[in-house]
């Protein structure tokens, strides 16, 4: 049974290792600041005992005040899971560091979120539109695209 780890414990572990990154712990997920996302992800992947080696999904959600990027992580070794979130308060230019160097699977997932929601992933080797064609105006999955 994949165990959803206790978010408070993980948040405190992250807080010890990389201070002042976790902004909130609620609803079974941990929210971190977008600048520190890469370090937190690296910590989660490499710490023995956590070892989240499998990235399941990246989603971008447009809440009207901010854009949230949600990462679902799973550890195949220990069979536990975690939900990591980060928030971009600036809707016109949301930027999040890319995790492609940690998990190769993030390649296409990040391109998809860039295409549909408009989140730029810094450090992605090939950030261009994947579903829509070059020259398409706008990002369809935003709530203000009609």
């Amino acid at each position, binding site marked *: 049974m994949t165990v959803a780890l206790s978010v408070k414990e993980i948040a405190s572990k992250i807080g010890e290792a990389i201070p002042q990154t976790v902004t909130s712990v609620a609803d079974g997920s941990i929210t971190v600041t977008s600048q520190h996302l890469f370090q937190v992800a690296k910590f989660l992947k490499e710490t023995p005992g956590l070892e989240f080696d499998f990235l399941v999904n990246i989603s971008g959600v447009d809440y009207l005040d901010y854009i949230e990027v949600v990462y679902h992580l799973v550890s195949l070794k220990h069979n536990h899971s975690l939900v990591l979130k980060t928030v971009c308060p600036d809707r016109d230019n949301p930027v999040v560091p890319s995790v492609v160097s940690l998990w190769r699977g993030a390649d296409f997932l990040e391109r998809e979120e860039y295409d549909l929601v408009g989140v730029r992933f810094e450090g992605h080797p090939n950030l261009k539109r994947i579903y*829509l064609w*070059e020259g398409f105006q706008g990002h369809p999955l935003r709530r203000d695209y009609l």
Partner: protein
Amino acid sequence: MEKEGSGMEVASFEWKNPLDNAAKLDKAEGLAIEQLRAQPQQRCPDPDQWLEQELKHNIIVTSVDAVINWGRRYSVWPVSFGLACCAFEMIALAAPRFDISRFGMELFRASPRQADLLIVSGTLTWKMSPQVKRVYEQMPEPKWVIAMGVCAISGGTFAQSYSVVPGVNCIVPVDVYVPGCPPRPEALLYGITRLHDKISKDSFRQPK
């Protein structure tokens, strides 16, 4: 790159990877799609002049026509153009249970230059539309188009989407519409027999 063999000199030069220019290629393709989309959404008129002429008894199908039409309608070769779910009902039609081979149509040609019939089965998106137009233009006359499934007829379930063409007759003229989501193989077969009827009323003197 020096290669030995047949005494030829090979010019050595830098081995550039064409994919480095991928962005330029993408831009050009995107431009083509935007141009197609920007054209006013007028439907291509359905080729149904034969209906009026039949009513007016203007056209007389001679025995030469009858022979040619017999040859054409019993060996219509489709181009394999399955886009989405409807493609599997088309393949099921080619399978032994529903057997399109009894009509001489089991040869799905890969190249449009060897085919007569374009069965557009599945949702057409704007990104794909230049390719449909290209495939249609590559087919030699006489050629026919069947729009299979509601997505090809009018956009179907996805008609309100930002990337779906509302019906393939925005791009190519359609002869037979087969509704269904997906239409059963027997329904598609009925559509094909209607197309055969249409072909039998053609005259080779009448330009299409």
